[in-house]
């Protein structure tokens, strides 16, 4: 795409819009509109971005220079200067006033048209428009595609750069790639009752009532048929059938997407967070038998609370009924995956003393699991490896703990013995086993025999696999310290505090990633990461150091990242939230 076209779209996105006297934007769109994006106060978003502490950090760390080449930065500055010169306002204020009526983006399948409507203060909008036009004209001329002009109706001037067409009328700027769509909007602006419009779309109306677009920084609606008709769902379904983990994490969303009449996405942004919240309709009737493992029989399965011990890097908690998931795998996955599952099932049955893995072992667990990944710590007298692998643990609940504890303890010991045989064959260190049987809990823990003096401390010394049974809980951890920490303290975060404005929704899945501990473990492994970078990219050490330090700096620009799946009896939401550090940090 030429600079002229790029700027025609990008710069005008940040430009002008409407006053209250103007007609509602729904009345400007054709009835066949299938997707809309509404940004209520683009000027406010721009201010939030420009004053965001992360932007200053990006300048300081050189990230801004990395991302924006000199030539583009110079063009952006030229445009800013032109806007300031012509409007007489600081460019940020000019943009804010020119877009005070909001920015709306729409897609119309019959015309394959994408439409941008910007509305704001008419006087400022006119001046910003002139500034942008003044900026684009020489660029368009240089690229061999000069801007064409022509009158449409009632004195409205239309402009065209290649396939991009734009025109303005009374505080409304229209940009589109489709002539027919552009004319439709201009006709509606001149005479609002010319055609049937998008305002009568019932799905859209229903979604706006439930989702309240005006409460969000930006709000998106799409007719689900758009996804269903464009093979999008088949591709998603195919991806799920080929990937066990993907199906386990998000498989339940597919059937809801297939049946829901609409999809909405609410975007919220301020100095504290950036949140993207997808919502669809939800109905227990739409869940097939093979995916009941995802939501439970009543479609309201609730995930356990998140585990958040000190130095947590990542934690995930989810409602999943693992036994039916494993047993109904032939309905969920393709032949390749099922072949692997069949092999694993045979091997696991051998490990588990002839018991059926899906029925007897996974069936002995209550639905739901908690997984946690933390920074790894070592006792003072323990060997500390050069490369630190995070400690991780899985916590589940046993249905018949008395019977299963003994069973699983034996299996764990067998497994350690097997590992020792394999390690011995490869010349790796051996695990020593220790059994502790308190009245409160039972522990089977292992540790690698310390290396001889002078020998390197290999990566294996990050692990001391441990299993702890406490009441009906089973804790399987990569290290003894983490297992004991989870046993001794209450590290569960209260879900009500994490649910935010959806406190009455049921949390099905919650994943959180915390930036500070992640940056800490990256720093601990800096040397290893630099070596990897040097070998993979054949880069000089200084270059590799810069890239790794930049990566760590980028992680520290954030505070946490959350993904959640929540539901009510009628709606299903998938949310992504990036949290930023406090302004004073």
């Amino acid at each position, binding site marked *: 795409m030429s600079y002229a076209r790029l700027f025609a779209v990008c710069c005008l996105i940040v430009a002008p819009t409407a006053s209250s006297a103007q007609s509602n934007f729904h009345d400007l769109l054709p009835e066949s509109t299938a997707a809309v994006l509404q940004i209520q106060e683009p000027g406010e978003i721009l201010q939030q971005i420009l004053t965001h502490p992360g932007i200053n950090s990006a300048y300081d760390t050189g990230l801004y220079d990395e991302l924006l080449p000199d030539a583009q930065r110079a063009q952006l500055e030229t445009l800013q200067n032109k806007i300031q010169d012509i409007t007489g306002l600081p460019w940020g204020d000019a943009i804010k006033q020119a877009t005070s009526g909001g920015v709306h983006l729409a897609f119309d399948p019959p015309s394959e048209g994408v439409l941008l409507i910007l509305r704001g203060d008419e006087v400022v909008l006119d001046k910003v428009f002139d500034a942008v036009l003044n900026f684009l004209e020489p660029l368009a001329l240089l690229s061999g595609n000069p801007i064409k002009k022509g009158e449409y109706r009632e004195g409205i001037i239309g402009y065209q750069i290649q396939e991009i067409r734009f025109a303005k009328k009374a505080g409304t700027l229209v940009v589109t790639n489709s002539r027919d769509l552009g004319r439709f909007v201009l006709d509606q602006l001149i005479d609002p009752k010319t055609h049937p419009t998008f305002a009568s779309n019932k799905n859209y109306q229903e979604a706006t009532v439930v989702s309240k677009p005006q409460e969000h920084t930006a709000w998106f609606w799409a007719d689900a048929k758009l996804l269903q008709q464009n093979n999008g769902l088949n591709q998603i379904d195919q991806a799920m059938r080929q990937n066990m983990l993907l199906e386990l994490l998000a498989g339940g969303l597919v059937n809801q997407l297939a049946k829901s009449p609409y999809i909405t996405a609410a975007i919220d942004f301020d100095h504290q967070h950036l949140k993207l919240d997808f919502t669809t309709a939800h109905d227990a009737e739409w869940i097939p038998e093979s995916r009941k493992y995802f939501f439970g029989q009543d479609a309201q399965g609730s995930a356990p609370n998140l585990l958040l011990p000190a130095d947590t890097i990542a934690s995930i908690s989810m409602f999943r009924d693992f036994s039916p998931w494993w047993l109904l795998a032939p309905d969920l996955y393709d032949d390749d995956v099922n072949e692997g599952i069949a092999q694993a099932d045979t091997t696991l049955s051998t490990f588990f003393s002839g018991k059926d893995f899906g029925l007897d072992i996974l069936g002995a667990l209550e639905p739901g699991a908690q997984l946690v990944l933390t920074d790894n710590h070592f006792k003072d007298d323990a060997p500390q490896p*050069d*490369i630190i692998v995070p400690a991780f643990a899985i916590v589940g609940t046993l249905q018949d703990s008395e019977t299963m504890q003994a069973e699983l303890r034996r299996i764990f010991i067998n497994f350690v013995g097997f590992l020792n045989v394999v390690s011995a064959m490869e010349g790796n260190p051996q695990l020593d086993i220790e059994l502790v049987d308190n009245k409160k809990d039972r522990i089977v823990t292992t540790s690698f025999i310390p290396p001889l003096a002078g020998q390197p401390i290999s990566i294996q010394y990050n692990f001391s696999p441990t299993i702890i049974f406490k009441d009906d809980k089973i804790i399987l951890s990569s290290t003894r310290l983490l297992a004991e920490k989870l046993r001794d303290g209450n590290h569960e975060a209260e879900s009500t505090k994490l649910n935010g404005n959806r406190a009455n929704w049921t949390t099905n899945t919650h994943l959180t990633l915390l930036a500070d501990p992640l940056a800490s473990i990256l720093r601990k492994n800096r040397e*290893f990461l630099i*070596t990897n970078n040097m*070998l993979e990219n054949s880069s000089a050490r200084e270059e590799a150091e810069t890239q790794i330090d930049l990566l760590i700096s980028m992680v520290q620009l954030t505070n946490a990242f959350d993904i959640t799946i929540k539901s009510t009896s009628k709606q299903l939401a998938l949310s992504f939230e990036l949290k930023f550090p406090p302004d004073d940090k």
Partner: protein
Amino acid sequence: MNNIDPAWAWSQFEPTSRQPWNRTQAAHLYRRSGFGVGRGELQRAVAGGVQRCVQQILHDNQESQSFQDEMALMTRSIVSSGNLQSLATAWLYRMLKTSNQLHEKTTLFGTAILRPVLTKSKMLL
């Protein structure tokens, strides 16, 4: 081969009009003593003369202490990771980046020639 005069074979190369010291000769020398160099380096080698070029390859290309420290860090990091296969990649990296290509070429030559012989004679088994 038996008729080669050792005195001639070991005598210092002197450019002649039939066999001048030019880019072809310099490139040949760099390929044999290392892994080749770029055009700029070849031009400098021709301009500096053959004696200076040989002197540089044999004596003046020693690795800096900082480079050797970097390589030591890299080796330690790979050994710590337990992925010893990466040591081969690290050696290739060293061949690419070292200033002393002759040293690495000789090592490669020694490894390629001697290892099969020693393995065959069970000295390495």
